[in-house]
């Protein structure tokens, strides 16, 4: 007797060939924006009420400011950010040829400071690095995310995917358990989103400031009572890369506002 169950499984497999278990289909991918209330959406939509824009303004001033013993500003090499930085953040983290690994936008800014400006690196999550990366990423607002397309990044995307699927911490939860399998439900009254990183660095009302994707990932790890990776750790960068590649094609929103 042919098992009907076997036929059902075979049909399922035939209709969803490229999908791994738990992955969200392309047309069902949703930005965190769609999980927010109308007030928070309105705050993000209006550039004069979006507090993230304060950082973009500061970042614009820093872009023009001469730094380090090189006495060069970002603008001296890159010119007008409106054209030179357009779409750049949508492909970060990107592969760095010298380091042979992916680097985040924040790390790229600090590499530029070290290699071209002879300036000391800006500390992670400091006001200036967030302002600069918000200013650069803002130039990509509306651009489709393409991070992870570079074939050299393949092993790192895989590493990130592995970390995303791996259970960790005292609560023994993987990212996928909430953000692939249980989005649209609630956790302690807050909506669980798909975890699509479309608007970083973003302004979280809870933080009362702008924060990076790494900060967000670290607080999720603390939430499942795992030891969070350090800022700039290769594991965090790989996770960031996987998340960006998972949001492939979604438009950038920087600076987004989230509750």
């Amino acid at each position, binding site marked *: 007797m042919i098992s009907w169950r076997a036929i059902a499984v075979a049909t399922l497999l035939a209709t969803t060939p490229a999908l791994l278990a738990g992955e969200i289909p392309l047309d069902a991918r949703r930005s965190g924006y769609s999980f927010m209330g109308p007030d928070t959406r309105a705050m993000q939509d*209006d*550039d*004069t*009420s979006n*507090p993230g*824009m*304060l*950082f973009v*303004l*500061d970042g614009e001033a820093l872009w023009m400011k001469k730094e380090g013993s090189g006495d060069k500003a970002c603008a001296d090499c890159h010119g007008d950010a409106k054209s030179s930085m357009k779409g750049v953040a949508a492909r970060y983290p990107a592969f760095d040829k010298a380091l042979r690994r992916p680097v985040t936008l924040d790390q790229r800014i600090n590499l530029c400071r070290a290699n071209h400006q002879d300036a000391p690196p800006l500390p992670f999550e400091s006001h200036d690095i967030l302002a600069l990366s918000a200013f650069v990423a803002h130039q990509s607002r509306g651009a489709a995310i393409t991070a992870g397309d570079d074939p050299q990044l393949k092993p790192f995307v895989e590493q990130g995917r592995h970390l995303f699927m791996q259970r960790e911490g005292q609560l023994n939860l993987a990212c996928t358990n909430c953000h692939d399998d249980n989005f649209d439900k609630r956790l302690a009254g807050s909506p669980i989103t798909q975890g699509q990183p479309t608007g970083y660095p973003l302004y979280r*009302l809870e933080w*009362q*400031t702008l924060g990076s994707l790494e900060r967000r990932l670290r607080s999720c790890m603390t939430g499942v009572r795992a030891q969070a990776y350090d800022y700039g750790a290769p594991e965090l960068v790989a996770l960031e890369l996987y998340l960006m590649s998972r949001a492939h094609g979604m438009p950038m929103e920087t600076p987004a506002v989230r509750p």
Partner: protein
Amino acid sequence: MAALINVPAKAKRGDVIEIRTLTSHIMETGFRHTMDGALVPRDIITSFTCRFNGTEIFRADLFPAIAANPYLSFFTVAKESGKFEFEWIGDNGYSSTASASIAVE
């Protein structure tokens, strides 16, 4: 410090217009402690004033419970063309200003 002001560039005489202001400030409450128990001193904006052509039209007092980067919006009636001047005053001698013009026809 950076500030974002939203004032309509043009208005008809007698129109009720909305003015929205957002400024960057940490608004440290003065109630928080560091990891080693030291009190973080209060650092907030205490007063906001809006003047139109030199005359005060709106004032607000701010307190520690107000979140970082305070956002204030209020309404006024457009009577004549002129300039709005905004001023934020706070702890430790903090002062910040911004301005915006309106054409009333």
